[in-house]
């Protein structure tokens, strides 16, 4: 029933777009015609780009909620990622030229701190050897990644990438804090998630002000685009899929990967069991606590990629005024997650739909219609409300929002 409703909704929206394009082709001088002119390859590319923060938040949310932890702090994690990326990029690529060293040191220190935190929380294993191998391995992997980046990219681009990695780790650390608060200290997940959002909403403009004397940052270099030779020459899809920002490729990989991990691996099975029936998972000898920590950490890492991708991907600065440059994308991501029924592909599709509306909104503003910008801006938000009302109740994991205590302590 629900699935039918969802499919119908998707079909109707696709048909609507199709109808607009068709009418536009037949009657080029009508408003629909002008609208259709807007829907070109550039429009598809910008939709895909705008989908990045929404979809990464949604994918992260899927892992957390399927493991039984409702993470509504995704908006805050996106803000943290967006701000940290720009702040570190500005710090390492300051006015006095690029200094790669401090950035790499910061990255490794953060990785080591995360490994230590993981060891202290008992997440890395039981024996000392396990802890050393996993913690050390994690730090080593980060070091190798940094080394490869420096070897492959020029100094400025490498520094931007290091800033990107730092942003992902900081967002991950912030989600770890949320995990400790909700899993260890049984905080109410919804209130704690709100707090994560409000802390980030205050902290990012605060730190911007401290560093730059303004809630908005100066411009920094971006990650640029990756162009696939030959394939990018393909008509229509070439410029959309094969001449895009790195984070767009990440998203195109992360979506099927998330689906694969969730449905085809034993870790994915644990995540789902931890959300549906933690008792059974516990009885089977799997540590529910560790699974939930891992799932929340994934939501933090994904949100970090989405947030840093938003700020370092194309614009190359951080906007901290009002609701910051993230501007509700985390909340829209949660809606995309619900709309997609906790399925990575569904969430990706829903994110793309919302992003397409957002892109359309930007295009309409450029067309200078009689409709004022402030009204056009509401289109994505109103759509979210309509979608929520139509989708209604979703089948959440049974144990979502509940603490799980194993009886051992």
């Amino acid at each position, binding site marked *: 029933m629900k699935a039918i409703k969802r499919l119908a909704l998707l079909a109707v929206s696709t048909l609507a777009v199709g109808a607009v394009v068709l009418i536009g082709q037949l009657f080029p001088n009508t408003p629909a015609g002008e609208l259709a002119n807007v829907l070109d390859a550039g429009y598809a590319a910008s939709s895909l780009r705008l989908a990045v923060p929404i979809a990464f938040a949604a994918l992260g949310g899927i892992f957390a909620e399927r493991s039984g932890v409702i993470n509504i702090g995704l908006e805050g994690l996106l803000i943290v990622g967006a701000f940290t990326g720009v702040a570190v990029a500005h710090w390492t690529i300051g006015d006095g030229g690029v200094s790669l060293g401090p950035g790499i040191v910061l990255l490794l220190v953060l990785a080591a701190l995360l490994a230590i935190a993981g060891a202290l929380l008992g997440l890395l294993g039981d024996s000392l050897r396990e802890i050393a191998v996993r913690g050390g391995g994690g730090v080593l992997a980060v070091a190798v990644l940094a080394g490869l980046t420096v070897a492959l990219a020029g100094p400025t681009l490498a520094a931007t990438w290091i800033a990107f990695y730092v942003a992902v780790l900081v967002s991950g650390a912030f989600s770890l804090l949320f995990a400790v608060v909700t899993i260890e200290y049984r905080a109410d997940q919804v*209130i704690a998630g709100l707090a994560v959002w*409000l802390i980030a909403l205050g902290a990012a403009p*605060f730190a911007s002000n401290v560093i730059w004397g303004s809630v908005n940052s100066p411009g920094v270099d971006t990650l640029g685009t990756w162009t696939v030779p030959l394939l990018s020459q393909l008509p229509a899809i070439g410029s959309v899929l094969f001449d895009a920002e790195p984070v767009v490729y990440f998203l195109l990989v992360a979506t099927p990967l998330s689906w694969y991990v969730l449905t085809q691996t034993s870790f994915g099975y644990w995540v789902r069991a931890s959300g549906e029936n933690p008792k059974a998972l516990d009885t089977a000898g799997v540590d529910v606590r560790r699974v939930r920590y891992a799932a929340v950490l994934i939501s933090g890492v994904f949100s970090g990629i989405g947030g840093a991708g938003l700020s370092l991907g194309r614009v190359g600065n951080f906007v901290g005024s009002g609701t910051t440059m993230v501007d509700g994308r985390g909340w829209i991501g949660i809606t995309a997650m619900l709309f997609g029924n906790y399925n990575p592909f569904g969430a990706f599709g829903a994110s793309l739909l919302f992003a397409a509306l957002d892109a359309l909104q930007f295009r309409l503003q450029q067309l200078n219609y009689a409709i004022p910008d*402030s009204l056009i801006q*509401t289109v994505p938000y109103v759509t979210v409300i309509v979608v929520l009302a139509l989708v*209604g*109740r979703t089948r959440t994991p049974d144990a*979502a929002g509940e603490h799980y205590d194993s009886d051992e302590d």
Partner: protein
Amino acid sequence: MNPDRLPGPIAGVMDRLVDASAGERLVVSVAALITAILLGGIVTLVAGVFAECSTPMLGTFCYNPLAVYRYLFLAPLFDSFVLQETLKNSALLLFTGLAVAVSFRAGLFNIGTQGQLVLGALAAALAAVWVGPAAPSGPVGGALIAVVAMVAGAVVGGLYAAIPGALKAYADANEVITTIMLNFVASDVAFFLVSAYFQKPGSGSVETRDVPAAARFGPEIALVMAVALTLLITYLLWGTAFGYDLRTAGIQPDAADYAGVDAKRMVVTSMTLSGMIGGLGGAVWVLMSVGRWVNGVPSLGFDGITVSVLASNNPLGVLFAGPLFGSMQAGSLSIDFQLGVPRQLVGVIRGLVILLVAMPEFFRTLGVRWGMGGGR
């Protein structure tokens, strides 16, 4: 995120809060506040290392947390301007704190007080400007305009909150997300309405015409109204059958349903009531603080969440938490101008307070560890 699921965690919190004695709730709130202030102090100190200033303390620290907190909490005592601002902010935060408390008590996360306040404020300003010429002159006329404006604010705020209420009740749409989305919509729509139809002639910023001066009042009257409303809401929640139903629906939706409470109607009613209080707060903001609607409404709605959470969603607790944050908001301008510490610091502390109040278990553990008898 499931609408079905959300009452679970709320019920969990409520159980814990109801089980816990009022004394323990107070201890958790005070401990959370003190911890948030300590953490905020550390944040200030650390941030000072990254800031630039001419005379850092001890060579590296630009910001002095003690000076910051002196401005945030004690400035009303020695600075009459800050005192006035504190009184105004306190009154406004009493309204928004109450608005949030009513919805949270009913088991609904109304995060949309901000949007309800923005539109309520706009309605109040327009109503006051509109009836202004028709009202008799003198204080009676002024009071009349003020009443009309406040009714307009409450009605529009209530109607705007009824939307997510109805969506929650009849379409199962999660109210956290719908209210946040409606916040975005409210500010865009208000901006559009004012810039397109109600713009003050010759003004560079987006604002309405000034409300008649006779309709404006000072923070004292606003505070009296806010306290009276607090007592009224306390009576409504604990002294009437409606209040009993509302609280039962919040703690035990099934029990309320069994007792014959129309759950769907209760959702819409309590959201509307919450929105009316928020809209009333918007009207007070217009009549007391600015004298017109102007773009860039302060985040009173979000601060209301902190106030309510800190007060365990208890209207009488709001009476203490409101002025506390009113003082912090008023002092935030001073720390910016006098000490050069960005005023967004208060936003960080706001989030920390909510986070810490949400984890009573943390303080229980601390209590046990320190052997203070706080643990059970």
